[in-house]
Every structure is written in structure tokens, then in C-alpha cells.
């Protein structure tokens, strides 16, 4: 099991009353499973993703990533977890503007000390970036930037890929292509995916779906793959 979440809660002490963002969330993710995390804005989807990635701290409950409870890990160990086990894809791409496409793709894998140039090259070609490797992010389109973000996340062969609306900034056709490439590449890398999405169409392409509402798991089920 790559991810095990039990009774997870997250509270923000922002004002007079604490704001409960996540309450008693529990679910698991196996091997190379793919799971779509759905819900309206403010339902806690991104917060859940951040907690799993060790970017934020839970207020209660358990998060086990690849068998390690990350809820009480120090800053340095969560950073190591992000380098070694987890891959991250954001809606805004969040590429490093000072590096070329090629360096961006290799960046995470090199940080983790697992850079495989052949695999990186294969990924780049697989998702159609072979002609843009020496360009800087500002010189390529939004769809291409998101492909770079996907390649970057998968180049390190993470056990778990966390994707926060990875196609949210793209038009429908491009989004379909990019998501298809992400799913295929992840399968080749042996990576499980936890993806936040607003789009039922994209969610339907995942193996499982989980809907959050006001911080609680409202519905969980098996997705019906879109044809």
C-alpha cells in the first residue's frame, strides 16, 4: 500500500474560531492505483494533497506514505520524502523559470539522486517535448509547460504522484491529451496517482473517485473510464 490515510483532520487557527478544513478523512491507495479527488471549491482537496505531500502538517490522524507515518516527521525528513517518494504536479505548472525544459525535467530526479538520462529522454519524447528541450519555460505554451511538469514529476519514478488540477489551465482537448500522457507514463513508471480535479470528465478516467464536501469524504467509488 503506497498511501494509507486514517481519521485525518486539519484545522486552521486563523481567527476567533478555528476553521476545520478536513474532518475524519480515511482512504487507502494501492500499488499503481489512480484516484480522483473531487469536490467543490474550498472542500479541502488541495489541503489533503498538501498534507500527503508533507507540505503542510495534519492536526490529527495518520498519513502513511510508503509505510512511513509522515504526520510527525521533522521538516528535513518530509523534504526527503518529497524528493524520494512523491512526485508533485501543480495547476500553475510551477516550473523553474531559470532552467531549460531539459533541466526542469531532470531537476527532481537529480535532486533525489536517481537521474536516469535515458528515462528522462524517453519521457520527454513520449510526451512530445523532444523539440523544446533547450527552450526556457516562458518560450513554450501552457500545455507544453504542463507536460514538462508531468515529465519532471515522473522522471524521478516516484511511488506516488500528487497532481493538483494538472489540466485545470488547459483547454479540453489539450487536457485530454496531457492527462492521457500522464496516466500512460505513470503506468510505465509504476506510480500511483492521487489527482485533484474539478472535471467529472477527467475524474472518470481514473480507477477510483473520492468526493470531499466541507472537509469530509462524501462519496467513494470506482470510476467508469471515459471512452
Amino acid at each position, binding site marked *: 500500500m503506497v498511501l494509507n490515510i486514517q481519521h485525518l483532520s486539519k484545522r486552521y487557527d486563523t481567527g476567533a474560531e478555528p476553521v476545520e478544513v478536513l474532518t475524519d478523512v480515511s482512504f487507502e491507495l494501492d500499488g499503481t492505483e489512480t484516484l480522483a479527488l473531487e469536490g467543490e471549491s474550498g472542500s479541502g482537496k488541495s489541503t489533503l494533497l498538501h498534507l500527503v505531500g508533507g507540505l503542510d502538517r495534519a492536526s490529527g490522524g495518520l498519513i502513511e506514505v510508503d509505510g512511513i507515518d509522515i504526520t510527525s516527521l521533522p521538516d528535513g525528513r518530509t523534504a526527503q520524502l518529497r524528493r524520494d517518494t512523491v512526485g508533485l504536479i501543480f495547476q500553475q505548472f510551477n516550473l523553474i523559470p*531559470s532552467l531549460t525544459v531539459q533541466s526542469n525535467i531532470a531537476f527532481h530526479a537529480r535532486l533525489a539522486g536517481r537521474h536516469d538520462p535515458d528515462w528522462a529522454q524517453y519521457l520527454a519524447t513520449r510526451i512530445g517535448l523532444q523539440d523544446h528541450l533547450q527552450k526556457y519555460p516562458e518560450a513554450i505554451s501552457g500545455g507544453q509547460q504542463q507536460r514538462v511538469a508531468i515529465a519532471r514529476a515522473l522522471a524521478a519514478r516516484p511511488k506516488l504522484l500528487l497532481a493538483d488540477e494538472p489540466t485545470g489551465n488547459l483547454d479540453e482537448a489539450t487536457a485530454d491529451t496531457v492527462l492521457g500522457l500522464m496516466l500512460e507514463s505513470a503506468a510505465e513508471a509504476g506510480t500511483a496517482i492521487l489527482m485533484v480535479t474539478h472535471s467529472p470528465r477527467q475524474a472518470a478516467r481514473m480507477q477510483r473517485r473520492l468526493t470531499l464536501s466541507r472537509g469530509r469524504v462524501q462519496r467513494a467509488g470506482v470510476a467508469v473510464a471515459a471512452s
Partner: protein
Amino acid sequence: MTRLGLIALLSHWRRNPWQLLTLIAGLALATALWCGVQAINAEARASYDKAADVLASGAFNAMRKADGSAFSTQDYVALRRMGWQVSPVIEGTIERNDHVVQLVGIEPMTLPQSLLERETAGTEAARGNGTLLQARALFVHPDDAAAFTEENVTLHLNAQRPVGTALGDIATVQGLLRKPDEITRLIVDTVQPMGLPPIPETYRIESGAGQTDVARLTRSFHLNLTAFGLLSFAVGIFIVYGAVGLAFEQRRGVFRTLRALGMPVRRLMVLLALELGVFSLIAGGLGVALGYLIAAALLPDVAATLRGLYGAEITGQLQLRPAWWLSGLGMAFAGTGIAAAAALIKLARLPLLSFNHPRAMSMHALASGRWMAAVACLLFVSGFAFALWGEGLFAGFALLACLLVGAAFCLPALLALALQAAGRISRGALAEWFWADSRQQLPGLSMALMALLLAMAANIGVSTMVSSFRLTFTGYLDQRLSSELYLRLDTADQAEIVTSDLVTRGVTVLPIISEEIRIAGLPAEIYGVRDHATYRENWPILAAVPDVWDQLAADRGALINEQLARRNDLGPGDALPTGDPVLGVYSDYGNAAGQVVISEAEFARRYPQKRAVRFGLRADDPEAVAQYLRATYGLQGDALIDQAQLKAFSLSVFERTFSVTAALNLLTLSVAGLAILISLLTLATLRLPQLAPVWALGLTRRHLALLELLRALCLAAITGLFAVPLGLMLAWVLLAVVNVEAFGWRLPMFLFPAEYLQLGILTLCAALLAALWPAIRLARTPPDRLLRVFSNER
């Protein structure tokens, strides 16, 4: 609409307080350093004017002897008999009880009436000339009274008199100066009888409209100060330019929206100008106040420098003179105008649909980088032209300005190349990102780094100059002060008794005798020296005819100091305006006035009334001689000084001479350090979107903060490396061009790697300190702030 537009524009500064602080602090500091220097200059000039007012004879012509020697009473009487309406004046300085006072003696009966009234206004003499005519009456400022406690004079204290000056009847002053029959110059009345016979050929009449001697001598020194003030101002303006340019790029969206909502571009420009005008006023006011404090702190040292170098007295009290504070405010407005001109021009040409570029700073840098490179090329070409064909102090400063500003403009490109090279040879993803990201930060930091480059180059240049000077000066003192003891007696009769005694005891006595003269319209001193091995072996000769000492002993000419040689373009074989052939040129540091050395015998022939009261003593056992002199003749205080004391005194005068430039250097470096701090703080908020992904990919905040510190150190170190050759070029221009014009001497240039290393370490410490706060803030940034970068609902 105007109010709403202003609110929209000002909201940017509310949201970016560090940027506002950058702007205000940069402008205030630039104004402060400029104002401080101008306040010092204004105070000094006011003191010179006051001193010149000791005898405000500017409206009258003066008659002098062409060879610079003094008139005798007989000369004066002869002119009066010829019908010339002239009035005698004697001028000279005395030093008593650590007070140097400029004495002016006049003859009230023949002095033009308007001049007499002006001179005696506010004094008892205003009620009649009686007081001035009283036996041994002297008008002095209360501060100078101490100088005359041992003199037989009746002091009339008058607080309106300039400090360091005294006025009395010519007979009284002649007595005080021990020049009983001397007249320095003759004031020529504006009304003269018809049909006067011409004046003798050896006399000449000088226009009274010229500047005072001291103002002319010190002009270069003040120009030097002004140049440093301007350099400091330029450092500050770099910061302002950066802040204004960045704010413009960040507000493109606001401009577009305001224009889309119907605000005319002209109104928008007026609002921006108004906004900057208010900032200029606030920063200018702060700068003037700071400048006052800087000037007040530096004035005592400047006063000491001017006294040591030029014998010019300036008061230690700083006054709030409109001349400098208005110039300070004017510079604040002008500086803001220059810094904002490019942004305003861009606004005028901004298309309505211009987009707000997410990489505002890079875009701004890219656009300005091109014209900066073009301007730098132009500046280097101009500097080259000034170096080849320019003459004088102006050309020297113009060369410096071209060199410094050109180099500063080239810096971003050079840094980018250096970082690119470092990136190429780096191994590992983190190192690669580090160098690439550093290059990405350059636009935001380039102005601060330019300021650092200028400050460091100025430091290296000035410290090389001062240290070269110190090394040369110390060697020079060893040559020039070769006697073991220096004796000073009150009267020539006493001197004869003491020196005769010393000679019988086997002590070599070398008289030091001099007379004030004028050469080419400026005051100078002529010395008579004895033909002795002390001079032959030690005198710091720079250039001379063969057998120079034999020729001097045979009265075939004179030696002159370097400043006199350079000022009048003289060398061995040329002739002085006095007619003496120049036999050689010697170095004479720590003194701006000209000097002429002739043989003792020739001096006695020219100035038979002059007798030596100062002597250099060569002795095998100077301590025993000193003890004997003190015991036998009761010599006290500065009557007998040993060589070490005199060297220590000379070196202390030297150190104070350059304490002002050292202080200005330190202030400039501090401004640059502050510029880095403020730039980093401004960047800190803009940096989060660039740092958050790296954090998300597996780096801790602490790690990122350490990398930020390392980045600041690397950028400062690379800038420092570029500053070394620039600083050395600056030193060369200062030594070879500016100093020669300002002081009249040229010094050899030495290199001081240890000093540069020390400065480098100081700069790195400054950069580290400047980066520390932003780094600590980054290390403590809550994760939710970093997460906002990725938030879909941003």
C-alpha cells in the same frame, strides 16, 4: 478621477512598503551625502570670504612687486611723492599657543574712506579712527585672544570679526610680525590724480576683482570633495532608479486599467510626477537633516585638513545656509527626475493594451540592459577621449565619471556572463539551479550591485591613493626631516648666542630661514639653505641639472618644489618668474603652496634684514644636546622638538587630511550595503513563487535560506572581483591626474593586496548582514504562505 487615480497608484506603495523604503532611503542617503559635502564647502567658502573681508579690498586694485618681494617704507614714500594715492598693507600669520592668526596691518590715514568704514563697522573704531591709531591696538575675535596673551598689544574684542584674523595699525602689525620695514602690498585708490608718472617697471598692479589666495588654493580640494559627494549621490540614485523602474513595471496593469477606465495618459503622468515629487520632498528633507549631521561630524577634520594643507582657517560651527540645503533639495528633485525620466517616457508611449508581464523585473532589465550597454560604450569612448586629449582637473573628474558609470552599466552583463560560466562548470541539480536562479535575480539586484561596485571601487581607489601617499610621505619625511633636533627661538639675538654656543660644542647648526613672496600671483615661500651634506644626501630631488648642489651653492639658480613646478610648468633649465634659473625640482608633500630654495648667501643678499630664528641641529647625541639646551637656556614647549615628534606631528596632519575621504568612503559602502538589504527585502516577496516549487520538490526552508545567503555572498564576491581593476584604474586617475591638479604633486602608485582583501572581507560581511534578515524571514516563512503559490483559488 484624480483622487481615485492617486489612491490606486499609492496603493502599490502600501502593499510594497519595502520598495517605498528603498526609494525614500536611497534618495535620502544620496541627498544626505551630497548635502553634507556641500554644507562643508559652503562653510569653508563662507570662512574664506570672511577672512578675505579682513580687508575687503576687492573693489580696489593692489600694487605689488613683480618678483614677489615686499615693499619697503621708502618704496611707499616714493610712490606717494609721485602722486600715487596708495595705502600700505602688511599681511602675515603668527602662530602662538596653538592659534594661527592672520594679521593685517593698515594705515588708517591713507586707507580709502569706504574701506575704513567697512572695516571698523560695529567696532569702537566706528566712532572715529582714534582707536585704530592708539598705540598697539588690535581688533580680534574673542576666540583668538589667547594668541596674544604674551604680546604687548591692547586687544579690542569683536565677535563680528572672522575667527583667525586680526586687524591693527600697520606699525603694530609690523611689530608683531617682526617685519619693521615691510609692506606686503599697496591698495590703489579708485580716484587718482591726473597725469601721474608711470609706476616703476618692477612693480605691477593686480586687479582687485580676483579671488582670495586661499579660495584659489583650496578650490581643487573643494572640487575633490564635491566629486566624492557626487559619487555618493550617484550610488544613491542607482537605488532610486531601480525602485522607480521596478514599481513602473509592477504597475503596468494599474496604468492599463486606469487608462481603460478613461484617465488620459497626460493626467496619469502628472499623477506619477506628483507622487514622485512628494517622495522627493520627504526624502530630500530627510537627506538635508542627515546631511547636516554628516557635515557637523566631518567639519572638524576638514577644518584641520585645510589648516594643515593650506593654512586656511574655517570655523568649526556649521550653519544652516540656504546655499547647501536648497541645493540638497534641488538635487533630490533632479535625481528623482533623472531616475524617473525613463519610466515616464515609457508611460507616455505605453499602448493601452500593454499587458502586465509576470516577469516584470526581467523585462525591465532586458529593456534597460540594451541602452545601458550602449551608454556604457559611449562613456568608455568619452573617457578615452578625456584621457587622451583632456587637460586639468575637469578632465580628470570627467574621466573618472565615464569610467565609473560605464563600468557600473556593464556590470549586469558581466555578472550574467560570470554566473553563466559558473553554471556551466557546476555539477548537480541544485548547483545548476543555484547559478541559473542567481542569474534570474540579477535584474532585481543589479542596481544595488552597481552601487556596491561603485562603493568598492571608490574604496579601493582612494585607499590605494592614501596608502601610496602614506608610504611615499613616510619615506619623504625620513629624507626631509634629517636633522635630529629642531630649534626655534624668539629673537635673532638669542639665536646667535645659542647657536654659537652649540657650534663650539660640536653640533652642526643648519639655519631654517624663509620669507613670504608671491609667484605668478600666488603666495609662496623662499628659503635660504646652507651648503651641507645633510641636504646633498637627503633632499628629495625629483629632477635636477647635473651637480645641482654645487650650482646652488654657487648662486646659479634655485630649487623649487613640485607643486610650483607643475603649476607653472617649470623644470630644470627653465626660469622662474623672479628670474632665477630652475636648477631642480623636489617633492614637498603636505603643503599646497610653492617653495623656492636658494643658497644661504643669496638669501642674505636679497633679504638682509631677515635673520634665522629656526634651526635644524645635527648631533651624535641629540638627547644630551636637548638636555643641555633646556637646562642652560630654559627652552620649553615647541622651542625644541626632536625628529620623532616632528614626524609624528606631520603624520597626524596627513592622517587627518584624508579622514574625510575615508569617512565618505565608508558612508558610500554603507549606502551600498543598505541598497542590497532593501533590494533583497523587496525581492523576498516576489521570490516566493520561484522558491516554493523548489521547496515542494524536496528542499527545506532552512536549506533555501542558506542558499539565499550563499547567493548574496557570491554576487558580492563577483562584484568585488570586478571592483578591483576598476578601483585600481580609479587610483591611477586620482594619483596621476586629480592629485596633480588638486595638490600639485604626483605620487608613485603602490598596490596593497592585504587592504583589498580586508575590504573584500568587509564587503562580504556587509552582504551577509544585508542578506541575513531576508534569509531568516525565508527560513521562518509559514508553509501556508508557500502553499499559496500552488493554490488554485489564489
